[in-house]
């Protein structure tokens, strides 16, 4: 319960007296660190990006980038934050700042501190190595992954000079304090109690404490990465009497094969942590991650959060449905496991009781041989799906032995495309099967028209998804796609 303050740019600032729902962005600005900007207050633009010291698997620290607008200041108790001001000054700029300035990477400059932070996060990424994968179109000769900047919007430059600045970065020099900081452990979680009376923020010290708290006050708002709750607070003015932060509880941060050989993914792991931890071992999820929002979001957003909000347009759900994932729910009374396909009961409603936490998801093994994730959105990165489709097909000698298809964006909940699955089962996987099943898939769900897409387009996209899959997947029969 010790720390009740945040180390910002090396200086500890007290949190006492800070309102529970104050975002890190507003708190930093009140400290005078106005380089941190509000562009949207919903994690879309990255103008508020800052660096946060996070634990690395090997016991060291990594500098992760997060949207300060979405994180409550209270959630940072005991943590270390670096802002653009902490990276460097006009007289002594950090290499990413000098690079941005010299390359013409800033015009109006409002987004630039956020870009500098995102760029610094990638600059310090362990495993960024020169000469890798330049052919994929988004890695520089210095190993810089341009996707690191996909959560930062710039309205002035058209991005080219920012890319050039990123690709021209070298390695941190020998005296770089932030590089050196990586070798020491990150701050551990600090059990936190902030506020009183009307509004309280609690980070329980243990799972038991969390579950007890939740049993006693089931109306509490449970938060992990706060990438959804932060939007509710900022844009819709929502407030909670009790906010319980659970993302550092060890029981919720597992990533392992459990006794029954299924893969267990802790609900409170960030998507970035899962992506790194799985390292491509679940190809369907590996396809989802790069398309899920932006790194600034993925560094905070959790799989439990994505299932907890139960949004019909969350991107992990269609994939997890196709993987036949099960949800592990825990309460003071114990654990239970439910099939994800039965977990969603209505628009943003689920089987989870108010006194339960999502502890993990379990993915049965072995995985299907053929998997793909299709996301339809206006923008390739950092956008919300109009339609998302997760495919997992098992072929036995060219015949479809099992088919599981998860859909997002076409009903009040994420759904399985049961009729399409039935239409595929037992058929030979060929062009004609794909075409016939596609016409079934086009009728699944009950898509609606909204500002993202029309109902008609959503249905059409369902219809083309299998055709697209069939074109990108070799058939096992003699037929070869054109």
């Amino acid at each position: 319960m010790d720390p009740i303050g945040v180390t910002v740019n090396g200086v500890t600032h007290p949190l006492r007296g800070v309102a529970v729902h104050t975002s890190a962005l507003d708190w930093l600005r009140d400290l005078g660190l106005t380089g941190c900007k509000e562009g949207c207050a919903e994690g879309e633009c990255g103008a508020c990006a800052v660096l946060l010291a996070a634990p690395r698997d090997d016991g060291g620290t990594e500098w992760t980038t997060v949207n300060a607008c979405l994180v409550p200041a209270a959630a940072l108790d005991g943590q270390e934050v670096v802002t653009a001001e902490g990276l460097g000054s006009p007289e002594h700029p950090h290499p990413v700042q000098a690079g941005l300035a010299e390359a013409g990477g800033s015009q109006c400059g409002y987004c630039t501190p956020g870009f500098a932070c995102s760029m610094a996060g990638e600059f310090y990424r362990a495993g960024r190595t020169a000469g890798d994968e330049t052919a994929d179109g988004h890695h520089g000769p210095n190993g810089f992954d341009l996707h690191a900047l996909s959560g930062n919007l710039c309205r002035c430059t058209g991005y080219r000079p920012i890319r050039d600045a990123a690709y021209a970065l070298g390695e941190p020099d020998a005296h770089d304090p932030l590089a050196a900081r990586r070798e020491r452990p990150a701050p551990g979680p600090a059990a936190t109690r902030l506020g009183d009376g009307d509004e309280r923020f609690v980070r329980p010290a243990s799972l038991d404490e969390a579950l007890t708290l939740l049993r006693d006050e089931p109306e509490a708002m449970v938060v992990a990465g706060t990438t959804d709750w932060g939007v509710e607070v900022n844009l819709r003015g929502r407030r909670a009497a009790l906010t319980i932060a659970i993302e550092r509880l060890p029981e919720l941060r597992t990533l392992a094969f459990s006794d029954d050989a299924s893969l267990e993914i802790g609900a409170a792991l960030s998507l970035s942590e899962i992506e790194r931890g799985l390292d491509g071992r679940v190809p369907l999820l590996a396809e989802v991650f790069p398309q899920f929002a932006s790194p600034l979001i993925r560094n905070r957003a959790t799989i439990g959060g994505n299932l907890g909000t139960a949004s019909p347009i969350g991107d992990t759900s269609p994939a997890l449905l196709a993987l036949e994932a099960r949800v592990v729910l825990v309460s003071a009374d114990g654990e239970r496991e439910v099939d994800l396909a039965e977990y969603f009961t209505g628009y943003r409603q689920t089987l989870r009781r108010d006194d339960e936490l999502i502890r993990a998801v379990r993915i049965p093994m072995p995985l299907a041989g053929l998997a793909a994730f299709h996301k339809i959105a206006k923008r390739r990165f950092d956008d919300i799906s109009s339609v998302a489709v997760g495919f997992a097909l098992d072929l036995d000698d060219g015949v479809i032995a099992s088919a599981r298809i998860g859909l997002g964006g076409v009903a009040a909940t994420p759904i399985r495309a049961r009729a399409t699955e039935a239409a595929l089962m037992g058929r030979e996987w060929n062009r004609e099967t794909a075409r016939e099943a596609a016409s079934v898939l086009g009728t699944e769900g009950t898509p609606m028209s909204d500002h993202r897409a029309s109902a008609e387009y959503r249905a059409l996209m369902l219809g083309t998804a299998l055709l697209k899959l069939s074109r990108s997947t070799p058939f096992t029969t003699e037929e070869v796609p054109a």
Partner: protein
Amino acid sequence: MSELAARPTDPVVGRRTPHESAALHATGAAVYTDDLAALTAGVLTAWPVQSEQAHALVTLDVRPALDVPGVVRVLTADDVPGVNDAGVKHDEPLFPSEAMFHGHALAWVLAETADAARLGAAAVRVEYETLPSIITVPEAIEAGSFQGIPRTIRRGDPESVLATAPHVFEGVVEVGGQEHFYLETHASLARIDSEGQVFIECSTQHPSETQEIVAHVLGLPNNRVTVQCLRMGGGFGGKEMQPHGFAAIAALGAMLTGRAVRLRLNRTQDLTMTGKRHPFHIVWKAGFDDDGRILALATTLTSDGGWSLDLSEPVMGRALCHVDNAYWIPHFVAQGRIAKTHKTSQTAFRGFGGPQGMFVIENVLGLAAPALGIDAATLRERNLYVPGQTTPYGQPVRHAERLHTIWNELRHTSEFDARRARIAAFNAEHDDVKRALAITPVKFGISFTLTAYNQAGALVHVYKDGSVLVNHGGTEMGQGLHTKMLQVAATALGVPLEAVRLAPTRTDKVPNTSATAASSGADLNGGAVKHACEQIRDRMAAVAGRMLGIDQRDVRFSGGRVAGLGVVPPGSVEVSGSSFTFAEVAQAAYHQRVQLWAAGFYRTEGLHWDAETMQGEPFKYFAYGAAATEVEVDGFTGVSRMLRVDILHDVGDSLSPIIDLGQVEGAFVQGAGWLMLEELRWDTGDGPGRGRLLTQSASTYKLPSFSEMPEVFNVRLLEHAAEDGAVYGSKAVGEPPLMLAFSVREAIREAVAAFGPDGCSVDLGSPATPEATFRAIMAARAAVGAAGERPGTDAAATTAGPRLVPSDS
């Protein structure tokens, strides 16, 4: 070369100089308006009470708000000591009794914190007496709901020619609006200083007009109100007219409470309250000869002006002046009118109607090319202006040969023909994905069409130590104006760039300024800064002449040294006494009681414009450019990607190449966003949400991100391009390159056509989102089945199609 355009040897203009604030930007040290508020103790926050109906009489009960802890005051119409209006047309009540759009601010709550202000605003009770509303342009046309004065540009006899032309096409098309989405939303911070002066820090492109509106709302003379703009986090036209009312609210709050008041819109407020690029509804009819030469064009443009006039008239004027884009159209009529709808008041946005005007002819050419059986690039090239021709409004197209130079050079450097052949081969091999490469030109007129705006002022100080302070009337919104002005001053005074500092824009330094708009910031203010500097330099030359024992006409200023002609070539070792430092001469001038500061003034010469007949020479010159863009379109989804973009653009002789390159690239991507991605959607249904903007956040209104950057992006500036009519031979750059993005739209159109039969004409919605593109692909594929007949809208072949609005009713 004119004195205005000529450069001295070793000028500071033309050097590759990063943005003057770049180091501040990158380190978070650059201060914006609301950053000041964060550092101001005891500041109150203003929060709007927004209408929840599109059109209604409203009655407010503000008392419940006063019960909310932290609320200090609620501002209403009763509080206005002066004129209750935020516009220049007196059609924008600051506190309305009639809500004119969903989101309209009806009252403002002042509170100790943003949270308290928000809760206070929610507590205000609003009674609505619902009135009928008009949301879409077709609804407005149907209802005859227009505002402002309709205008027509006419040349020749288009009606007769269209009646006899060998090939006639017609159609109706709508082009969507665009949200500015400057990263910094509208912001003002007002306080009353010890002398009773109202001092407003404001994110505004037009400080003088902000000052005037604040003064008339407060009932004060202009000399009691000072507006300062440090810098803006983007403007793009969105802060030309729109900041005034917000500044007035902050100022009114400060005056009534005696405390500093901040007003910063959050993103949703900014999206739902402020104007955008005008959506346009376009009816057109065009005639061609057998060779594809345009014979005549008749078009009627109806812009969606929103609830008030704002800048809709000059926006339409510029639209009408750009329907021709870069093409000779002998017989021409374009009429423009402004619909009045219950939406935000649409306003200036980079291009200012020019993009919507050019949309007409580029759309016509893109549709007609396949129907005429002529390749679109050839059709465009065949119709480009040649020297000696004039625009439909009677202005000679000076330097029309540059269009051809640019066109040919770009075709060469982009390997246009070879890539076209490769693309054809690719398309023949791929059924599900198609590529295309399109080239389009830009010709954009530079100058405010309101001639009076074409003036500017500057105030330059040389201090005794030789350091220089520049004030000018232009504002910095990221376009690099201040960087260019520093370079202009350093060039004119012959000092190093580091010797010059630029002070924030303030109305008490340079009065009666024009908006920093119409791409004219550097032309106008550069002229004024140069004028001021040259007065000082000439006076210092007289002093230096005496010091050097030479005639003052032989004194040269360069690199911070003052010497006689030819005495000290740059970089050589000087002979003692043969030259002096700039500071030494300044010091001497002071002791000789020579004035070391000057006011500069500039007016653009040679402009004349008859707004009634829409004839004259409204533009000082034209900016030219062309872009060749290759796209790939996915047949399963309609998603398109820019594979490669090549641009050659004419900025005259660049004042600052890094800045100009950045303007060209940024404008292109912004234009591509408008044409491909950015979609404003309003609730047009009859439910309670009618008129509500549905895309009112960053998560629903999508602007280009890194993933939309062209994979290969080659931008070059035209060389040896001195413009005689502008400062140091440069040209304006802010707006023209935005319209290079038509190459993207036309490439998408051609790629979609590749899904259809040969000669397939593609009608493409705008923006060409994946959904709109997919619809076009379905239509093109359906045309494969329609055997024999060539698809298209050739009126000679089909009598179907929309009726053309009578050309001069």
